[in-house]
């Protein structure tokens, strides 16, 4: 075997070459990864559970010529992997064992990838810092006093800290892109319906989407080749052909129109984020892109719309956690209502309770029209904003988050401030379009460097173009080569 010491720092494409040249076996890859996790994860706390036994068995038999043959992939703990825990970082699912593979896991396995561990997250994906995990707070590998972002914070931190070659996350309002930005990795949210949600615990069903977190854009394209496609078991899954997402990588940006939404470059953005994104825009221009200012006039309504639509859907989705068929059950209930109310009180954390209450309220008789119906109409206005913008430009560019990673505890007592951390990512979920965050620089804070993310948005099903643009930008910079020292 070769280069064991730096092996965990390899990206998926490099790892595949080593595997296919026979310079390392899938089993050795897993063993090296296991050692890396054992040494680093007590500091980062990215994983909730690990199962090398099943993984090593798969590694023994896997064909390295498969598209992801022998590549270990970490899975956010909201996605079912047969025989593994699937806790959503919630007490209510603390002892839950997944009885089947989610479609995305089945597809990863079919491509030769090996799931071996489940990553930490905000409980039921509700949060932007991974502090809402009922188990532990994951640390940002660039500064362990800071959050990795969320809700897919475990997946982002694991990739950033070289304790995962790639990971799956879910993105309902930015939960892949924002932690990718905070942790200095690539995070890709496919268009709504592009990737199956079957076997993924539902938070907000009209917004949720599964996607990859990786070191490089090429790795995200490789994972998307395995993940995308129609699934008859998910009625919201789109019947559209899946292109080879790696095919367009390497093309330049000549002739492409790149839109800057003027509403995304206003007050409240950290100066270092603003400078980094402005430099990235210049870079895209120098690569041949034509920069065009566009307007998304209803941007200011996105966060408010999201917190009505998402909590309404969550309150309905989380009604299934009733302590009857699976999950935590309160002891010695007086009657059925007491059973439900105490089971859920004991099982859910504060943020989940808040959102269930808000969602129940906006759907309740007398308030439905004022809140939920109005929010759905504003959602349509936001969708139309993007449709108009994409009639003029090919992609849109913005910061992923208005600030770099914040400190643990900094926003945890103020839910509204935490919600505003998602201000640039939420609209893409409301509109169902695809988006990616790629590293575009650093903020110098004290003696630390904190990563900054560039968000690029593309229209529905335009993943291939989005990856092409992101790849061209990434390859023209060195940001993705700078790794945190943990």
């Amino acid at each position, binding site marked *: 075997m070769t280069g064991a010491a730096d092996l965990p720092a390899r990206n998926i494409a490099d790892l595949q070459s080593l595997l296919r040249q026979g310079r390392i076996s899938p089993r050795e890859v897993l063993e090296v990864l296991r050692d890396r996790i054992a040494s680093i994860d007590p500091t980062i706390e990215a994983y909730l559970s690990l199962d090398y036994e099943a993984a090593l068995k798969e590694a023994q038999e896997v064909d390295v010529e498969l598209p992801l043959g022998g590549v270990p992939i970490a899975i956010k703990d909201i996605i079912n992997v047969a025989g593994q825990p699937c806790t959503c970082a919630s007490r209510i699912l603390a002892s839950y064992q997944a009885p089947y593979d989610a479609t995305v896991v089945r597809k990863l396995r079919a491509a030769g990838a090996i799931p071996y561990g489940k990553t930490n997250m905000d409980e039921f994906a509700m949060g932007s810092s991974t502090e809402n995990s009922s188990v532990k707070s994951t640390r940002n590998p660039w500064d362990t006093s800071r959050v990795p972002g969320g809700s897919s914070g475990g997946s982002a931190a694991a990739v950033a800290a070289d304790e995962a070659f790639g990971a799956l996350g879910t993105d309902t309002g930015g939960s892949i892109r924002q932690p990718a930005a905070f942790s200095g990795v690539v995070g890709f949210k496919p268009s709504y319906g592009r990737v199956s949600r079957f076997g993924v615990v539902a938070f907000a069903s009209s917004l949720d989407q599964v996607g990859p977190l990786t070191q490089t854009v090429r790795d995200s394209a490789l994972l998307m080749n395995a993940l995308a496609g129609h699934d008859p078991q998910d009625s919201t899954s789109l019947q559209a052909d899946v292109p080879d997402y790696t095919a367009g990588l390497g093309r330049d940006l000549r002739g492409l129109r790149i839109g800057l939404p003027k509403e995304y470059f206003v007050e409240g953005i950290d100066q270092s984020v603003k400078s980094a994104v402005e430099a990235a825009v210049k870079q895209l221009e120098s690569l041949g892109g034509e920069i065009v200012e566009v307007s998304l006039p209803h941007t200011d309504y996105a966060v408010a719309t999201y917190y009505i639509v998402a909590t309404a859907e969550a309150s309905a989705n989380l009604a299934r956690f009733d302590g009857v068929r699976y999950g935590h059950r309160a002891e010695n209930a007086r009657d059925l209502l007491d059973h439900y109310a105490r089971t*859920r*009180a004991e099982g859910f954390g504060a943020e989940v*309770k808040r959102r269930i209450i808000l969602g129940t309220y906006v759907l309740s008789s007398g308030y439905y029209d004022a809140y939920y119906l109005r929010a759905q109409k504003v959602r349509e206005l936001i969708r139309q904003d993007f449709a108009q913008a994409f009639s003029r430009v090919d992609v849109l560019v913005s910061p992923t988050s208005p600030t770099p990673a914040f400190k643990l505890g900094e926003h945890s007592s103020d839910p509204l401030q935490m919600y505003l951390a998602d201000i640039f990512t939420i609209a893409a979920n409301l509109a169902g379009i695809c988006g990616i965050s790629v590293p575009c620089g650093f903020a110098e804070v004290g003696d630390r460097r904190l990563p900054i993310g560039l968000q690029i948005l593309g229209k529905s099903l335009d993943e291939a173009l989005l990856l092409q643009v992101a790849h061209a930008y990434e390859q023209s910079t060195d940001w993705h080569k700078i790794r945190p020292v943990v």
Partner: protein
Amino acid sequence: MSDSADLDVGYVAKLARLQLSDEETVLFQKQLGQVLKYVDKLRAADVSQVDAATHAVPMFNVFREDEPRACFTAEEALHNAPRQRDHLFIVPKVVE
């Protein structure tokens, strides 16, 4: 839009089958009051010309063939049950 002061967290928690402590009720009342005040900004949006979007991608009547497929065995379905007996979920008594 109604006044955010209309929110009665204790009452809504009952609707949501969620028992809250007194401390949680007071805290959520304050925090969600702030959130509702924030979402009040939606009142300013002109929605007179649009229909409600239920989904980002409008889709209707998605059907599949009604064919038998593999499904869970009783053991698999009961695998995570908090209490079970004789291939059944055991639940609190509902009918007197």
